[in-house]
């Protein structure tokens, strides 16, 4: 590697990392929080078989999973203004990432809820508990344990997915890499560097996920 490239990469590293920490991470955290809320609500509606709302949830999942994330971003950011709905770039990204990943996570959560045996729910009724009490004490804790790895997966995939926000003018880490590259013309070096920082973020998350899985009570083995 020549000295010029090395110097460019060294000087751009703190800059990229700065955008990563100040934009990519908050974007991910906010989007993931939104996705989690959506996922739990959508999963619970389907699990409890709430009439009417259940169809609405299936429709939402169908639309989201059947269309590309990039197209969804464009639709909301470039499309909706023509019907008078104008959102700033960052909130658009949070909304679209949240609703997008929320659909996938809803399926993970629903699967986890359904994997808690029906018999435990019946036993809960038989000791006099209400539906809400059974959900709170029995079903949700076990479902969370089961859904945890899948949710960790979604979080990791979302970190990388936020780079798409560059296409709707959000100045996040990848957009910053593009900007720097526009000046220095070192695509291979510059994009490798930004890839490395994403890898760093995801590696930390992978550790956290493994640590979390160990910490979560495994109820005396098995599962």
């Amino acid at each position, binding site marked *: 590697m020549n000295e010029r490239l090395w110097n460019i990469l060294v000087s751009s590293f703190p800059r990229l990392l700065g955008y990563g920490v100040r934009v990519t991470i908050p974007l991910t955290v906010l989007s993931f929080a939104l996705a989690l809320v959506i996922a739990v609500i959508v999963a619970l509606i389907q699990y409890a078989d709430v009439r009417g709302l259940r169809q609405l949830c299936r429709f939402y999942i169908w639309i989201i999973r059947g269309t590309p994330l990039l197209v969804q971003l464009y639709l909301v950011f470039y499309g909706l203004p023509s019907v008078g709905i104008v959102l700033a770039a960052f909130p658009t990204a949070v909304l679209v990432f949240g609703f997008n990943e929320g659909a996938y996570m809803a399926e993970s959560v629903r699967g986890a809820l359904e994997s808690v*045996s029906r*018999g*435990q729910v*019946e*036993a*809960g*009724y*038989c*000791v*006099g*508990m*209400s539906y809400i*009490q059974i959900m709170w*004490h*029995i079903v949700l*804790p*076990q479902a969370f*344990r089961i859904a945890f790895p899948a949710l960790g997966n979604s979080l990791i995939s979302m970190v990388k997915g936020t780079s798409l926000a560059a296409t709707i003018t959000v100045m996040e880490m990848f957009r910053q890499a593009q900007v720097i590259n526009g000046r220095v013309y070192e695509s291979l070096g510059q994009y490798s560097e930004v890839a490395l920082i994403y890898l760093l973020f995801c590696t930390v998350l992978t550790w956290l996920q493994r640590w979390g899985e160990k910490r979560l*009570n495994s*109820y*005396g*083995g*098995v*599962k």
Partner: protein
Amino acid sequence: MMLEVRSLRKSFDGHEILKGIDLTVDKGDVVAILGPSGSGKTTLLRCLNFLERADAGELIFDGESFDLHAAGRADVTRIRKKTAFVFQNYNLFLNKTVLQNVTLGLTAARGMGRAEAGEIAVRALERVGMAGHVDRYPNQLSGGQQQRVAIARGLVSNPEIIYFDEPTSALDPELIGEVLSVMRRLAEEGMTMLVVTHEMEFARNVSSKVLFMDGGSVIESGPSKEFFANPRERRSREFINTILADRK
């Protein structure tokens, strides 16, 4: 008389499983519900605790009458709190320890303090010989141990009757005895029990009454001794002979 059922009917997908069941249980009775598989025994038991909604029928419990089809949520919960249900597959709460499994009905459903519930739970666990395992999780126990914890979970709320749905059918043969002996002791202590079972020894020696079902109807009912010594109906006789022949 503490429990009476009148003309209980239940169909699944147009197939009639229970064709008008009548049943009377007195305080202290141990009623064995016998019959070939598919005769509707389990469905009968589940309807009594509203785990299945009957299509029609009346339940008289403690002198109060309830509609087995249309009873409201408050009535259902009230009845369930006076009864206990022991499942074939134990259905312990897998995320809770043995102690928590037994206390949850008291703390969550009845608002009792944790300390008091804990004391009552330990006494119930002592009755089934499981007090030494309070901190274990269900997955760390044998089937027989899990079923005994499930019985303690039922006992803890001082039920007026315990429903047992084939409590030993999922157990390895060597584990059946420990569960049956707990049930025998409860019977001797005067607990009212309604037991769907294939254990003929239990039906003959422990239960006071037998209800023999076939094809969704009660074919014969009466004191156990009489039922086994002198079955009145042809189908009862055939059933007893088949079961006893299998055992040899």
